[in-house]
Structure formats: C-alpha cells, structure tokens
C-alpha cells in the first residue's frame, strides 16, 4: 500500500486546473499527524486553478486529521463527512471550502 496522501496531492498539482472547482477560490491547509510528526499540505485554489505546497501558511480552512484517517479518505474508502461528524477530522475556518473539495476524494477530478 503506497502513500495515498502524496499520490492524491501530487495528482492535484499535476492537474493544475479542476473544472469542478471553478466556483471556488481560497486556501486549504491539511495538517496530517503521523505520531509526533505533522505533515502540512497547503492547497491554493483560484477559480479552479490549483497549486500545492508544504508551506506552513495561514489558510482560510484548516483540516486536521491523523494521516491514517486521511489516507483512507484520499483512497475513497472513508466518507469525509462521516469522518468529520465522528471527530476523526477537524476543521477550522471556512467550512464551505471543504464541501466542493471533498468531491475530489472519489477520484473524480475531471469535473463536469
């Protein structure tokens, strides 16, 4: 089993533009905990144009989760909303950003 998280974000970066996010602008930061280490992924969305980095910058929406949980979400095995309701994922800031973004977890990246 590979690193689904890296595959997911690298895939986003490679796409550069996601039509399904054309109505979205803002920054999301994913703080993923693995033991004592936290890996950060900063996703900047500008009307569907996507840039990904590891910068530790302020974001409109911060998503915190164990890396193992996020791996399952990224692979499409775990529903993101259920994980959020369960407290396995926490969010801070603009929740509205996560809603269009969670669609990408299904692997559907070409939009409509």
């Amino acid at each position, binding site marked *: 089993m590979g690193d689904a998280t890296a595959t997911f974000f690298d895939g986003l970066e490679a796409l550069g533009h996601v*039509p*399904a996010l054309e*109505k979205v602008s803002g920054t999301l930061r994913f703080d993923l905990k693995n033991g004592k280490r936290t890996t950060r992924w900063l996703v900047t969305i500008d009307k569907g144009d996507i840039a990904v980095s590891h910068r530790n910058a302020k974001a409109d929406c911060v998503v915190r989760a164990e890396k193992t949980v996020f791996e399952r979400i990224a692979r*499409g095995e775990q*529903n993101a*909303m*259920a994980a*959020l*309701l*369960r*407290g*396995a994922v*926490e*969010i801070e800031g603009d*929740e*509205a950003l996560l*809603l*269009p973004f969670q*669609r990408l977890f*299904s*692997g*559907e990246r070409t*939009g*409509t």
Partner: protein
Amino acid sequence: MKDDLVKILDGNTFVVSDSRGDIEASLSDPTGLFSFDSRFLSTWVLTVDGERLNPLSVDDLQYFETRFFLAPGTGTVYVDAKLSVIRERAVGGGFHEELTILNHDEKPVELTVRVDAASDFADLFEVKDALEKKGSYSARVEKGRLLLGYRRETFERQTAISASAPAKLDKKGLTFAVRIDPHSQWTTDLDVAIAGVGGHNLRPKYERGERRARPNMERSLERWLRDAPRLESDSDALKATYRRSLVDLAALRFSPPVMEGRSLPAAGLPWFMTMFGRDSILTSLQALPFTPELAATTLRVLGAWQGSRVDDFRDEDPGRILHEMRYGELTAFEERPHSPYYGSADATPLYVVLLDEYERWSGDRRLVRELEAEARAALRWIDEYADLIGGSGYLWYQRRNEETGLENQCWKDSWDSISYRDGRIPGFPRATCELQGYAYDAKLRGARLARLFWKDPAFADELERQAADLRRRFNRDFWVEDGEYFALALDSEGKQVDSLTSNNGHLLWSGIVDKSTAKTVAKHLLGPRLFSGWGVRTLAEGEGRYNPIGYHVGTVWPFDTSFIAWGLRRYGYKEEAARLAGGILDAAELFDGRLPEAFGGFERGVTKYPVEYPTACSPQAWSTGAPLLLLRTMLGLEPLGEHLVVDPALPEGIGLLALLDVPGRWGKVDAFARGRELGAHGRRRAVVA
C-alpha cells in the same frame, strides 16, 4: 407524541418538554434538548423543597421562546399559592432559562430549589428505534459548571450547565439555597450550552449586552412577516391560515452549517429539522410567490451537496440530489447512510424544475448561470443513472443499500404505497408515473435554461426532442385503457401497476399529459373515488389496499392536493382547482390554520370534520406550504416575461381576495380577486362538495 408537549426551536436545535418545562426522557421518549440530531439533555426537572410544580399556563411567545407559569402544590387545589414560579426559556445554541420565584406572603421564605440534569446523548434515530449506546458517559463539576459528556472513539458531545445565582453543583444537578423577603422575588439565569459538532460553541449565543439567547436566524419573525406579501380577504379564516403558514414556515427555516445564516425549509418540526431534497424543493416551490429566497438557498445547498461518486451505501450517483442529511452518532459511524443519503428518485428532476421556476419568478439569471454545471449533471443523472432497465427511457428506482436504504424513493415512501388494483405489491425496480412527469418537465425547463442562459441551443433542441419522445411513449405505456387514467407505475416487466391514485394530478402539474386525455384525468381527480370533499385521496376508494387512514393508501395529503390544483390550472381547469383549494382551506380552518401532514380520506359528508392522521411532526413543511400554493392557484398567478399574470378563480365562500406586494422580477405587484358571492359578515359558508 403527547399533545401537551411544549416545543421550541431554533433551526435544528430544539427543546421538547412537558407543560411544566420539565424533561424526563427515556431512550424511546422524544423529549429533551436536541441539536444536530443528538440529545444533549434528557433530564431537566425543577423542584422546590423537593416538590414538583404544577403548570398554571404556558405562553408561547415565539417559536424559539416560551414561558411557563407554575405553582407548588398538588392536583387542582393549590395547597400553597403563596409562591409562584416563572420559567422563561429561549433556544439558541443550547438554551437559556430565566427562573424566577415570587413570594406573595407577608413573611420571608427559605427554600431549597433544585434542578436535576442528565443526558443520555441519544441519536435521534436511537430515540425513534430505541437502540442501545456504544460509548461512555462522564459527569463532572468544573469552574462553576456541570459538564455532562459522552464519548465514543473520537466522537464527543458535551453539555455545560451553569447558573448566575450562587449554586451548589453536583454531578446530577444544581441546588440553590434561597431566601426571599415578603413580596419579593428571586431570580437566576440557567445556561445550557452544547458542544461537539465540529467543536463549536460552549455557550448559548448572545449579542453584546444581551441577557437572552439569540436564535440563529438572519431575520426576526417580525421582519419575516413584514416582508411577506399582505393578504386581504373577507374570510377571516383564510387570513388566519395565511398568517399561521408564514409563522410556521419561519420556524421551519433551517440554516445548514456551510450557509452562514441563509436558510432553506426543513421538512418538519421537530424530528425532520434537516435538509431533505424533496421536501425542501417542493416547499420552496410552494413558497416562491411569498419568500423566494428560500428557493435560492435550497438550490445552492442541494447543488453543493450534489452526488459525485457511485456509493452503494448512500445510494449516491454523480449528479443525484440528496434525500436526507443527518449529523448524529449513527450517521457519524456509518451505521446509517445519512451523510448525506441520496435515495430519492424525484429530487433530481425537481431540482431543475425549481431552478427554472425560480428564474421565471425572480429573474435571477446569475444563479441560473452559477448552477449550470449542477443542473446539467442533474439532467444527465436522469438518463445515465436512473434508467435502471437499460434503454427503457424511463426513470426507475431500486435501492442499492438493502439494509438501511429506502425501498420507495418517491414521495409515497411507505412500504405498501405502490400496489396494483388487486392489492398486490410489485417488485423492483419501479417506475412510478409522477417521476416520468417530473423528468419530462425537467427536460423542457432545462431546454429553456440552456437556450436563454447557457448559450447552448443544441442541448436545448436535444432536451426538447427527448421530452417529446418521453411524452409520446408515456401517454401510450402508462394509460390504463379500461379505467381511463394513468397507471401508478410500471413494474420491472414493464406491466402497468394499475391502481388509480392522486399521482395523476402530479402528471397534470408536469404537463406530460396529452391535452386529449387531460379532461378525463381531471374528472377522476374530482370524482367520488379520489375527491373526499376535503382533498384528493392518495389512493382511490375501491382499490385493493384502499384504507381511509392508510398513510399513502387513502389519506388526503394537503401538499399533494395543492400540487394537483396547480396541475389543474396548468390545463385550464380553474374552477376545479378552486374546488380543491376550497376543500383544503376549509380543512385548514378546522385545524386552526395548521394543516397536518395528512388526514383521513373519509367522505366529507360522513365525518363533517377532517380526521387527523397521527404523526409525530407538526408543523410539516409542505403542509405549511399548501395554503401558500393554493393562494397562487386561486389567484392564477403566473409569470409571463417580465410581468405577473393574474387570472383568479375563487372557491365558493371567498368573496374577496387580495395579495399585496407579491415580489418578483416585476418588483412588487398586487393581485386581486373577487368571488361569485360574498358570505354573510365575511364568514365562509361551509360547502359540502
């Protein structure tokens, strides 16, 4: 549900208590403080010197606040009337209670005032199904607050209780040692704050300087009522029903977490205070001439949650509009599929219908452009995911979640709602007739939007071609020759499920019925087998499963009849539409302006009074919307270009009807109607149909 329960709410946070203001819930008992589908208080009992109090009266101040007047003593004779107790309670991110005790005596009194508090943190589904909990509980006193908690893995819910007056706190409640001088009073504020959903809030919401909890809604009830069109009529009952509908609709507003104060209609109070695709869309349609902003929020939110993947547990497909969203523990642990659940076959075509109807009223082309991708995906769902018998060209449903999914994914969703004349029940998949009507309407309306706003005339042509083809096939395949009406459904073998139902009226509303047969269909809808005198029965008298108090097999649903009236208007049967409006509004008067979800299908002349079907939810959103839609059909309101056409037909007994300041793309206009006769002194004559 017991009748004397007192309910107050703010969005999906609500308190259900007895008439003393007390809560003593068991797992299966639906009282308590609820928020986001979890119970946060299951015990909340006030005693004075160890004695429970007696209710004198309850003041429903607003839907979000109430006042209980109480006195110590037992039974009907008050042994000690020298004390009275007032509990004033308001919901808003938990609740706030102002507890006041008045001493009417000439001597001072010393009292022990106790509030017992506890919570079982039950999920709403657990309350309905009486299920056991899997997590662990905690109770502790910390920094002047009693903290009640529940934890299951990462899932946490907490209730924090505090008081403004000095109190002794223990794990089971608060005790006050109170001394009150002669003719004086003692007061404490009690705050019940909740936390857990996304870690939000540990205190009730206040604005600076306020002492009272503030409800979530962006507009006060006062403004809500002021902004709605004004109704004038010689019928006091109609005026009262209209006002009741507006107030209830205000209470039914639900602001989903991502919408920052904008609201859409939830399905029913209190158990269905959440997003439902079908209910939110149909209620928004009913309310369009009155509160068009509900439609805009409904479209945005349902669009944001539109399905994007194939997920069998949630019955989700790309483009599908959700059925129901829940936030409780069972949903969180995926023991229920409501995160959200997509098992609805009608919400998706109805989404396109609402988008088009909303534009026709509001002229809000921006939203139509903003939601182009969502509307296209919805239209694509009809052809690519809902034609379960490949190439049949019809919209079918069959759940993929066999355990906790819904069997019937149309509005008649009880197990026995779809049956043949002889009472047999068909297998799956099923293609109920109204779904084909909605799909037809969605395609034509989608074509209008594509041509006018999406600059895609080729797509518009294609949709119109598909619609014409669907209509041709439908009028052939669903027409029951020996009964001269449309079959309720096709079964999996393509055979007609041949009972006569109210669904025929929805077909008129969708416009799929050929002009040549519309008259026959209208006759059935107002004929003795379907029309009870109050409204249209869900299933016709004489059918195998007909039962006048069967949920979807004989009762009258006011919302159903209101859409049927709209359908009759669409085909020019305005007198017939007026008769249906008259029946439902007469029933509304007998229910004090608040129509229940459904009432018995008994012949009006027999019972003289509509027999309410016992359901837990009241008010119900689309029953609340029914009088609003009937006002539209009575006045014959129809947008035409930049204008609003008024073409009234009033039922007997309403002499005068005026709706002032109807909002829309025309600004605000007034609509007037005069009836055939004026009842004496503005009272409506009872008319037996």
